[in-house]
């Protein structure tokens, strides 16, 4: 029985998520769910004077993969510019998560990136997200 997708790190982050919560006066706040399973993620971002991510927080409800992914992603984007967020590569996030995922679970893993990008574009931009494979 291969439970390698539930590596220690994933369970740790599920139990003790990073950057979990809300921000006062974020520059943007965006939430979406995965209609297939009802998982929800909201991400809030505040940019510093230098245009880089100064603070980020997320909230949500879902499986270990979608929730661990939100912790990993929000850690990773600290200090990035808006442009860098918009160009954030989904394969990079999957690498950071680092566990083998079935097709259905890739959707869970990418929910947080979908939410982050939709927020970063101001409005959900379906055409762009399709290009990104989200």
């Amino acid at each position, binding site marked *: *029985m*291969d*439970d390698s*997708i*539930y590596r220690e790190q994933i*369970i740790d982050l*599920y*139990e003790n998520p990073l950057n979990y919560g809300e921000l006062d006066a974020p520059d943007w706040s965006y939430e979406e*769910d995965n209609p*297939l*399973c*009802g*998982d*929800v993620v909201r991400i809030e971002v505040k940019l510093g004077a230098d245009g880089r991510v100064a603070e980020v927080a997320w909230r949500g*409800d*879902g*499986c*270990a*993969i979608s*929730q661990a992914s939100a912790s990993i992603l929000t850690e990773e984007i600290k200090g990035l510019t808006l442009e860098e967020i918009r160009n954030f590569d989904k394969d990079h996030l999957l690498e950071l998560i680092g566990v083998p995922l*079935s097709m259905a*679970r890739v959707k*869970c893993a990418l929910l947080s990136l979908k939410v982050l990008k939709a927020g970063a574009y101001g409005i959900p931009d379906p055409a762009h997200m399709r290009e990104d494979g989200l």
Partner: protein
Amino acid sequence: MLDVTKIRANFPILQVEAHPGVPLIFLDSAASSQKPAVVITAMDAYYRQMHANVHRGIYALSEAATSAYEGARAKIARFIHAADPAEVIYVRNATEGFNLVAFAWGRANLEPGDEILLTEMEHHANLVPWQMLAAEKGAVVKYVPFLPDGTLDMDAIPALLTERVKIFSFTAVSNVFGTVNPVKQLVQMAHAVGALAMVDAAQAAPHLPMDVQDWDCDFTAFSSHKMCGPTGIGVLYGKRVLLEAMPPFMGGGDMIRRVTLAGSTWNELPWKFEAGTPAIAEAIGLGTAVDYLIGLGMDEVHAYEQYITTYALEALSEIEGLTLLGPSARQRGGVAAFTMHGLHPHDIAEIVDKDGIAIRAGHHCAMPLHHKLGINASARASFYIHTTTEEVDKLVMSLHRAKKVFRQ
């Protein structure tokens, strides 16, 4: 009681491995059941020996196909105790049955301010078509609440079932709670205020003896693929007088009597509602599935499911941190939906899959039900005639393992 070993030998897929070296334990029949070999063989034989379009050819082959297609309809009519095979309309699935009634009956009969009564435990198939109809017609959709144990709040019905209600549509068996609703009583309540009654039999037809005349429902719909038959076909039953008064659903070949450039007149029942070349092999497959179930005996099927479900509910309820949704075994069909403390349903389903066990995780097309419970999702194991107590034991073991992975 049914001989489960014999029955298992009827289902080729039960020989398949879920993963190399791991046998398949299929606990998702409520989503779609597996198929006995007789059904697969009947469809294969049809294509090899009998295929031609129905109701069209004069030649022998077409007549054979037509008589097999119509013969299946007669079997289904007997299976649900319809007074007349013409009251059995082939559709694609239960979902299409609801859409047909909402479209054809609803558009012709609803006025602004009229009400449609549903329940909070409905599958989206028995929700969305009515919401679309109500939006178009300026009608109002209301819902009978369910109680914490997953049974309908019967006391709330009289206040909701006013004279403004034109149709009361509800499920015979909930696909999440497993609740078996008192169909006959609910139909009577609808009729008492002059409303029609439609029954969602998607989770009833595979599991219980069905008698539409005893129910006295006006319409009912169910899907072949949940009752040992193929995908792509389902049934809408309607009382003849209602079906005759309704305009067609889709236009095209087969559903007409006469077409001129100025207009058309409609074919008689049931073909008025079957536009275009139908799912012939699938109808024959469903007819064979019905034969198979009748051969087992629906009372026997029901009794076996009661046995295995009672066993499963007891075993599952001993798992600490596991919460079962729905009523006690005596009032329910063969489904057990549950949540587990500290584990998301997705993760549960993923871990038990590693042990070869197929269960469903999500909202099971019943989002309003889950929202009312304050959850986004649940895990659901469902049982059928081939489910063994050993399989249930393996599920329980696997759930214990899931708890360990999640340090619960």
